[in-house]
């Protein structure tokens, strides 16, 4: 557990040493800020609905950008060999990296709290969905981070890792909007696979164990995939 914190610290600090963190945060805030506030006054409602509606889509290209370097860079410069010959297990490494990415997602979401505070001044804000929304955002972020980690473990090229991660995240986000392409029997299953659906449930303020379980399973499967991919490399 101690090793996990050391790796988490190092990876999290790394984001802010390089320009990645600042670029990603700026882009994220610009995109979400623009889409949210450009229609906010038309709707004339004191809620963060629109912000959370859009979040899965923005996350699916922002988060792979955060996670793309986590394994790819190590593989590329060869530092993975150094990391793994220090007294750490693979589990320490992957959990540390995942937590660092989730912390980065937290840092991404932190400034958006100001939206909520601003709106609370403008009208009567219902805090329930807001808290649910942020909880959901973290769960969704964790799932996408794990997917990004998996993509990063596949290749030593960060750009390829980004594109693979984005492709998977987009698929999970949009799949439940494309149900009419699939045969009747599969609808239930594929509907369940969509991340957006689960996220919207939580962001309405309904915290259901099924949705939480969904996100945790995505994390688990993606991390397991990453483990297999890294083992293959040895």
């Amino acid at each position, binding site marked *: 557990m101690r090793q996990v914190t*050391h790796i988490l610290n190092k990876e999290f600090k790394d984001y802010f*040493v390089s320009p990645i963190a600042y670029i990603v945060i700026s882009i994220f805030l610009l995109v979400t800020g623009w889409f949210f506030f450009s229609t906010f006054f038309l709707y004339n409602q004191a809620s963060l609905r629109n912000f959370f509606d859009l979040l899965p889509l923005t996350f699916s290209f922002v988060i792979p950008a955060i996670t793309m370097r986590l394994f790819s860079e190590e593989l590329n410069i060869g*530092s993975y*060999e*150094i990391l793994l*010959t220090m007294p*750490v297990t693979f589990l320490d490494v992957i959990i540390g990296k995942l937590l660092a990415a989730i912390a980065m997602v937290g840092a991404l979401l932190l400034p958006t709290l100001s939206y909520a505070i601003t709106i609370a001044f403008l009208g009567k804000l219902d805090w329930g969905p807001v808290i649910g929304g942020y909880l959901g955002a973290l769960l969704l972020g964790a799932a996408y981070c794990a997917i990004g980690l998996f993509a990063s473990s596949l290749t030593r090229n960060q750009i390829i890792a980004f594109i693979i991660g984005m492709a998977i995240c987009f698929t999970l986000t949009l799949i439940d909007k494309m149900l009419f392409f699939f045969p009747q029997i599969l609808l239930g299953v594929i509907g369940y696979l969509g991340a957006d659906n689960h996220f919207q449930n939580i962001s309405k303020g309904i915290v259901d164990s099924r949705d939480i379980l969904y996100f945790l399973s995505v994390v688990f499967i993606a991390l397991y995939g990453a483990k297999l991919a890294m083992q293959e490399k040895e």
Partner: protein
Amino acid sequence: MIRVENVTKYYDDLCAVDQISLDIQRGEILGLLGPNGAGKTTTLRMLTGYFLPTSGDVRVKDFSIRENILEIKKLIGYLPESAPLYHSMLVYDYLNYVAHIRGLAHDRRIPRIRQLVDLCGLGNIMHKTIGELSKGLKQRVGLAHAMIADPEILVLDEPTSGLDPNQIVEIREIIRRIGKEKTVILSTHILSEAEATCNRIVIINHGKIVADGSTEALKQSAHQQAVIRLGLLNADPDEAKSKLAAITGVKRVEADKADNDGLLTLKLACETALDLRKPVYQTIKATDWVLMEFQQESRSLEMIFRELTKEN
């Protein structure tokens, strides 16, 4: 200290290391020699726990790599080839990070880093990012990284590759200094380096050990041949050849054509058991040749290496 038992490693169908067994004692500086692709790095990676062997076992002290890999990792400091360190970190941050992961106590961390800064000469670069360091400096940071927890065993993969001659001498000096108290295993394909730093040499080829012994023992190994090299002025090649070949114990004489100054270079292959310097000198003294060079060569490590790793 370290016992390698019948270790084999396959990469898919390719057999990189084939049934290697080794016993390494405390305080040895062991040089792992071999041509490119002989399995040096693979062997070191298994020793350090980067991956497990396909079959066989590595035991360090009482720990087996299959059961107590974490304990073994704690005992070993490892510097992979060309020091692949995180480019974006500062040297100080990096060493501090490694000290944390290696579990150095809080009050030991800074003094230990100071010590290593002195030992490896990192004083001027602590505030630089690793990416902007030259290869030699990076290698030194890597060395500091490997030694930070004061491990009992130090494994270095090609520690001097890509360095300039001055840096090579410095790194060797550091390795020798460490080797006084620790067990050091280093791989290299530079023979003079192994000769200069190691007290035991293992040569591997195609994943198998083909020679194992101290530098001296290897040089005196079985089919040895002593060679005497002569430089003569005023001598006729054929006459010199026949006269020198007549000395008992000389097996073969090779003469190069005399160069522009009339210097004739001869190579005498001699039987090992006899020291032929005296009779050779006396033969020359009896003629009116002028002796310009006289040198006895023992079989160099290079020759042994070439012989053992020759492709048939």
